[in-house]
């Protein structure tokens, strides 16, 4: 039996499940992180294996489908394509890196690392499910561990932040669920049988009436917009980030926000092309407003972590703008942006954690001259900032360029409005660099040391990705392009 015939996706999904249980119920608290690391490295290995076996442009692959609750058309269907593969890889990469980064966590280690693995289960599940029922279960499953993560290991206002996070995203989920049911019932009429299978629904959903598609699309968009998040339903994000522990922020911004974008491409545009064509302008408006609004608010921030949180809002606006173009390069750019933002923002939140940990503060005015004490950390922070502001040669540029080219095709010279973001983005990052890295070291910060090994390793790995993908984005783009074509399959302009 060839490797490809094994149920690879199920194995990838099950290993963190087993890991969660093991870590939760193990006796020796101190070994929790080691066990968790092992259980998170296996899915990483699996996703690399899957990537190597993946046939570019081959549509859904590694499919497993088993009937589950036949009477209402629920099945266990998992598969992967060019849209979900980068997301799967991103998830399985960031989880072990976060575990390493959180190596010196002292408080309730078993729960901490167990919950991280549980989040991984939910995230992998969302990206591989092709059955709405399964998709929704995983979608909600992600919330619970993250809620505890913020609530237990968070900062001073952790309870407020955790609950706000939960309520916001849950309201979004419920509205999304309504849309899913609408699709379920509407497709049942056309198909002649009721099913939650996404592929089956997708065969008929483009034929739904424009009015129905439009309404369903808006409902889905609301759900995904909360998750991404888009202005004005974004206010949970800064609070959640400010209070969350670093590993939580990394996963939250690095992968969880991408669930919104993923849903938009996988469900919104693919299944409801007429709805997307009808309301592309809503996506464009949300995207552009988010980009500029987020960037402007970044300029005003005093808390480094809050600034990075708002920059995520700004950068996820690129995803929405790319999606709204409904052309190949724009959509592919949006998908690429999800991946590259995941990598870059992970670096930025980790660096935030390092700085807070070493100096005891995240207040930009109190930090000064860190280069002298933390040259390695400063170098990585500079690379992260430059990648985030879209410097060519680093991965953020590739996706931004693609989105802008797509947007120029779609909106012509109007793109100067979102382009302002690039200037503001440079302003807040460069200004922050001047304030926290340059100048004389602020002696009040005490004895500050450079990166620990367990901090350096994950950061260095991510920096390698940033530089490599900046110069050579092909491995990723080759996978994404056919997926973008598939997303646009039903869109006829």
């Amino acid at each position, binding site marked *: 039996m060839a490797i490809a015939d094994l149920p690879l996706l199920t194995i990838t999904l099950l290993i963190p499940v087993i890991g969660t249980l093991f870590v939760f119920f193990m006796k020796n608290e101190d070994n929790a992180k080691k066990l968790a690391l092992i259980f998170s490295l296996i899915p990483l290995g699996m996703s690399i294996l899957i990537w190597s076996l993946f046939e570019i442009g081959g549509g859904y692959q590694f499919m497993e489908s088993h009937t589950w609750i036949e009477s209402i058309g629920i099945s266990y269907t998992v598969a992967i394509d060019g849209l979900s593969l980068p997301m799967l890889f991103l998830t399985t990469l960031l989880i072990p890196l976060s575990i390493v980064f959180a190596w010196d966590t002292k408080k309730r280690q078993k729960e901490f690392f167990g919950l991280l693995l549980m989040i991984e289960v939910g995230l992998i599940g969302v990206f591989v499910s092709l059955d709405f029922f399964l998709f929704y279960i995983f979608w909600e499953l992600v919330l619970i561990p993250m809620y505890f993560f913020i609530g237990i290991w968070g900062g001073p206002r952790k309870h407020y932040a955790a609950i706000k996070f939960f309520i916001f995203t849950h309201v979004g989920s419920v509205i999304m669920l309504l849309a899913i049911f609408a699709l379920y019932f509407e497709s049942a009429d056309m198909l002649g049988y009721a099913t939650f299978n996404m592929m089956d629904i997708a065969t008929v959903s483009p034929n739904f009436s424009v009015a129905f598609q439009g309404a369903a699309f808006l409902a889905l968009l609301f759900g995904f917009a909360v998750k991404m998040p888009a202005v004005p339903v974004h206010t949970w994000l800064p609070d959640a980030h400010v209070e969350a522990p670093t590993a939580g922020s990394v996963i939250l911004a690095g992968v969880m926000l991408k669930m919104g974008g993923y849903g938009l491409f996988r469900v919104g545009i693919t299944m409801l092309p007429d709805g997307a064509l009808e309301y592309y302008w809503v996506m464009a408006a949300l995207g552009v407003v988010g980009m500029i609004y987020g960037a402007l*608010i970044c300029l005003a921030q005093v808390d480094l972590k809050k600034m990075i949180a708002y920059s995520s809002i700004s950068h996820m606006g690129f995803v929405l703008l790319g999606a709204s173009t409904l052309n190949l390069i724009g959509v592919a750019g949006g998908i690429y942006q999800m991946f590259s933002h995941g990598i870059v923002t992970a670096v930025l939140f980790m660096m935030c954690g390092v700085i807070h940990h070493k100096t005891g503060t995240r207040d930009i005015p109190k930090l000064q001259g860190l280069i002298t004490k933390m040259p390695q950390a400063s170098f990585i922070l500079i690379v992260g900032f430059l990648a985030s502001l879209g410097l060519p040669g680093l991965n953020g540029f590739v996706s931004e360029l693609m989105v802008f080219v797509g947007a120029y095709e779609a909106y012509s010279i109007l793109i100067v409005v979102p382009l302002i973001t690039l200037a503001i983005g440079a302003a807040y990052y460069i200004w922050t660099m001047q304030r926290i890295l340059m100048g004389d070291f602020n002696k009040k910060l005490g004895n500050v040391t450079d990166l620990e090994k367990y901090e350096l390793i994950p950061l260095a790995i991510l920096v390698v990705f940033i530089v490599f993908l900046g110069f050579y984005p092909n491995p990723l783009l080759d996978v994404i392009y056919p997926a973008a074509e598939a997303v646009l399959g039903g869109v006829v302009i």
Partner: protein
Amino acid sequence: MTWVEFSYLIPIIPFIAFLIVAFFGNKMKEGGAPVTIAAVASTFVLSVLVLFDVYQNGSYETSMNWIGGTGLEVGIFIDNLTALMLIVVTFVSLMVSIYSLGYMHDDPCKRRYYAEIALFVGSMLGLILANNFLLMFIFWELVGVCSYLLIGFWYQKPAAASAAKKAFLVTRIGDVLFLTGIAMLYVKFGTLNFVELEHLMGHDVQGLLLPALLLFAGAVGKSAQFPLHVWLPNAMEGPTTVSALIHAATMVKAGIYLVARSYFILEHVPDAFLIIAIIGGITALMAATMALVQYDIKGVLAYSTISQLGYMMLALGAGAHAFGYTAGMFHLMNHAFFKALLFLAAGSVIHAVGSNDMRKMGGLHKHMKITSITMLIGSLSIAGFPFMSGFFSKDEVLSSVWHAAADNNIYYVLYAMGVITAFLTAFYMFRLWYMTFSGEQRDKSYHPHESPKTMTIPLMLLAILAAGAGFSFFFGFQDFIYFGHAPHVTIVHMFEMWQTWLSIAAGLGGIGLATLVYYKGSISPSVFTAGPGRRAVRHMLEMKYWMDEVYMAIAEKGVYGFSLLMDKFDRKVVDGAINGISSGGIGLGHASNEFDKGVIDGTVNGLSKASFKGGKLLWNLQSGRVQDYASVMILGVCGLIVLMMLTGVI
């Protein structure tokens, strides 16, 4: 086998040197300087070989696919223009990196310096060799980052940190517009390759004005043209070698190079030429006036650089028919030599004096003869003293503008501005030279000495070129660098034109006036401030036409003020609305008398009402027990199944 086939090594060698110095520089002599110098020297040798190849065999291109499916590629394109730029950049880089041995000898961060210089040289060469606009833009941004890092090299100094930021942000404005132009070209033509675009230009020249101007906007930022010139004077906070290399001889020329490279687009949009010429003319004159009142020796040279860059832009704006292309690139080459010389000589002076302030100098000629004489040669060259290199190129620039005036009268005005600039240039350069080297030492607190050989030898080599490079125009340059068809100018022909005599008069006039004021003392400098009108003009020049103030107001009051407002809006209005909704939840909460913990709980409860239709369940949820949550989900699923049964789906 030809040498051009190895041209890909030209940017790669400095990049490898960068990595070696960055990682192992601390273990090497002088922080890794020999590695950087050797790398730059080998790029110079390769560039010379490439130049011969191109001279014999014509242009060369090689490329490979970069981003699959988009037609975007990584490649090298070498034609005459590229070959010229390669020689200029590698030669000046070599001189500056050798000079650095002396100048940076005592700096504790030499490793970082030589690593960043190597990175810069590699990026700059990549920019020149790129075969398409996107690749050019990538390196364009990389040189920008190197410039940022090197301006902020002494990052502990607040002025340096702030100058670095300013340089990055001001040029970024141009870069964003440049990128927009690139996106427009790509969408219109489906390629960004220079050669392919040139072929496509023949068929479709509609709607090119906007992309052409957007490309030019990138050049305005990078080459410090009005109104984005404000970053360059501050950039002098970096080491003087950096000023010489990046902010005088090479990187700031990237904008000029971009305009020259885009000539095949510009020739279809004559209006763009006019705008380029006007911006260039304004920049040249305005910057020259600001140089008049500087006391900082590097400040004079910085404004002079802006002014001379304006000169090049003015020439390029004269258009293809008037040989502006040849004149502009010729001036670029000469300026690279004499301005690098002037900066390095100024660095030698600063090295000896320990200050940039010319008021503390004076009488240095007796102490540092080599510096003094080489700087005199540089000053004569830039002032347009007959037969020096600056004389020929300045004359070609003015002559091309005069030719362009045959089609459009505005060029007469620009010509006059150019002549006035020539006069002012000669004046401020000799003001600088006399204040520094002649008379008596005004501040006796230091003991000047000549710089070491590592510094004076590059000065002498550059001085030879600053003096003699001008003759190259008649021996090959004009037949090598041209657009359309080559100009045929002879020395004899030059001196038959009254315009040549006018520009000689302007240069000698400036030198003469400076001599009277700052050497002979027969005219007191106070004549420039006699009377309220003159004082007002002087004040305006010292305030740099208040442009920094205007930009600061826009940035601080405008953008930053607006961002503070938006932040407040976000917290009070957007988030407040959420909390407002939750207030409604509090009312309901009171009714059931279960939740009464104020806004925080209210937030939860208000919204959860909508989603769960029951406070009790939520109360359990808040208790944080997973099983409660799971039971909600199971209840929900059960409800759905019932619903589906009722509607007859199952």
